[in-house]
């Protein structure tokens, strides 16, 4: 047990190195967006926020980023849950035990390049299809990079998320003794689908919810993957913020900070739900 003094020291250090820099950054962005700080700003103004909302891109970007995160997460959670329930034991031994960790070692930018090289019209898949005479020219290969349905972006997030959730679900199955519950339910004459949908899936989802929310925040704010694999319009929220922050016109900088403020507020709301869901998961 920590003594009261050492507990306060830990809290103070935590505050100093985590909360304070975040608060300082948030405060700086907020005051920049209202024209209070910044070398080219001339005092308090609402015009930067007005311009940002009048332009409208911010709304598209929020919806688009959330959409990408929801679709990628839904696919990844569904597939990894299915794999974990079916083959949980196979992942504990043999080569699968190692293979599962490989995608986790990929940084976002490396994964984005990999998918770009795979899916682009002059990429690996297109070349294989061409060699197999499945397409007449490499240009006939479908648009999978910078495409209208964000296929390459969603595939890339899926590729990174599946192993993470697979490991998570395998551990949940073990820790929550789900197999034993399933066996118990079977002895009480529950059908296989009843056991799965009424026992295993709800427990696993409830326990994994905090991680799902955290991963949602990760995809929602990702930068390199949408930058390389996404389209020039609509943009995800981070791409929009960085574009505004790095524009040729320095007078647009405060709008970039306004995007950052909105993004931070959105993440804070999500974190509130995360703590609530964590509490619920702990009590489950």
């Amino acid at each position, binding site marked *: 047990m920590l003594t*009261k*003094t050492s507990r306060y020291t830990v809290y103070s250090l935590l505050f*100093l190195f985590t909360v304070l820099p975040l608060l300082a950054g948030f405060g700086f962005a907020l005051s920049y967006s209202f024209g209070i*700080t910044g*070398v*080219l700003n001339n005092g308090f103004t609402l015009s930067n926020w007005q311009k940002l909302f009048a332009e409208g891109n911010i709304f598209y970007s929020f919806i688009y980023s959330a959409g990408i995160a929801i679709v990628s997460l839904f696919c990844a959670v569904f597939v990894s849950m299915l794999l974990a329930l079916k083959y949980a034991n196979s992942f504990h031994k043999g080569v699968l035990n190692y293979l599962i960790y490989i995608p986790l070692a990929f940084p976002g930018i490396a994964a984005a390049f990999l998918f770009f090289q795979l899916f682009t019209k*002059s990429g690996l898949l297109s070349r294989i299809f061409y060699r197999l005479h499945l397409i007449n020219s490499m*240009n006939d290969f479908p648009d999978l990079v910078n495409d209208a349905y964000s296929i390459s972006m969603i595939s890339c997030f899926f590729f990174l998320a599946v192993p993470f959730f697979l490991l998570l679900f395998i551990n949940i199955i073990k820790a929550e003794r789900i197999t034993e519950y399933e066996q118990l339910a079977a002895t009480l004459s529950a059908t296989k689908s009843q056991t799965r949908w009424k026992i295993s899936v709800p427990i696993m989802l409830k326990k994994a919810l905090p991680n799902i929310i955290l991963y949602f925040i990760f995809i929602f704010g990702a930068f390199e993957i949408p930058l390389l694999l996404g*389209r020039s319009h609509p943009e995800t929220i981070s791409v929009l913020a960085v574009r505004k922050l790095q524009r*040729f016109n320095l007078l647009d900088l405060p709008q970039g900070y306004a995007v950052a403020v909105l993004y931070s507020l959105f993440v804070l709301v999500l974190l509130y739900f995360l703590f609530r869901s964590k509490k619920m998961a702990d009590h489950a």
Partner: protein
Amino acid sequence: MKHTKIWKRLFFILTAFAFFSCQGKKGNIAIDYSKKSWQQIEEEAKGTSATMIMYLGGKSGNKFMNEYVIPTLKEKYNITLNLVPGQGKEIIANIMAEKEAGELKGQADLCWINGETFYQLRQIDGLYGPYNDMLPNFKLVDYANPIIRYDFQEDIKGYETPWSLANFSVIYDSNKLATAPVSMADFERYWKQSPGRFTIPNDFSGLTLLKSWLIELAGGSKALDGKFSEEKYQQYSAQLWKWINANKKYFWKKGETFPSGNTAVTQMFASGELDIAFSFSNADIDIKIEEGVFPASARSIVLKAGSIQNANYIGIPYNAGNKAAALVVCNFLISPEAQAKKADLAFSGSRTVLDYRNLTAADKQRFDTLIAIKFGISLPVLQANAIKEPVPEYMIRVTEDFRKFVIEVP
């Protein structure tokens, strides 16, 4: 009571932290180097080190700096030059943050900049100067050339040192296109014949292409010279966006998206996915053919409006910590020796900013013995078709409107 003490201590630490983090380090911002002799400046720079922020993504540029500039500076002046990666946006962000924090001794002593960064740095008074007249080699620079003296049509007034000349050129594969499109009418014809094989990078190169078309629409190379004209811009840009929107269905990915930068376009040109690439370096095509990146059949052309030309420069941040070394480095970089090396195809193959007529016979010899560029545009053609960069307002508006009226229009 104990808790109150701890919180008091914490409050003290935080206040001290905030106070000290707001204190800028003392630099040599107040020293007037114009009152010192060049010998004194060189003496002060001796045995010190300087940091330069520059784009380190180019193989030939890196080779020039690492294999020639850094060792020669060490040997001749005992200056250690450290390179830090960064370009326009990062340089602006750095200097702006330091200015906002009141930092008097900045991280960088030199930075490699071009017109857009110069314009932004001048907006925030981020550059040291005027200092060019202090540099002994500056008298060799072709300062009468408006492309060198005016950066984005703004007089440099000694706030940056010209380093090399650049020109916008269009690169095509002569095996795939019998004749390269030069005028807007040619481009329209080509797009319809070969759909899906052309795109506009959404960066400086693509925006320069758009400005070139704007100049063609406005009536030729001098049409957008001088101050920004809202009337001209409205008239010709409306025509430009209408023309692009009418034709973008023939672009790469049907014009529904545009690559974020020229690097992606260059890669797609190299892999055969696109027919046309863009470059700001006249020697780029020779170097890339030699390296095997571009096909041997790649050629470059000048657009109908001409070739937008500009110079790139070395700037000294207003709060550079080692201005003496920065001045010596600037002077060295415009020496005939360093300029001839930079013009060598084995390094960057860049066009020099020096006036050949100002050079001694021995220095002329350095340039005369260089291997001539084979596939880049010849110097007489470049000179005959030179367009000065229009004022920055055109760039700002084209950047915004290309997004608003083309990218965001389904």
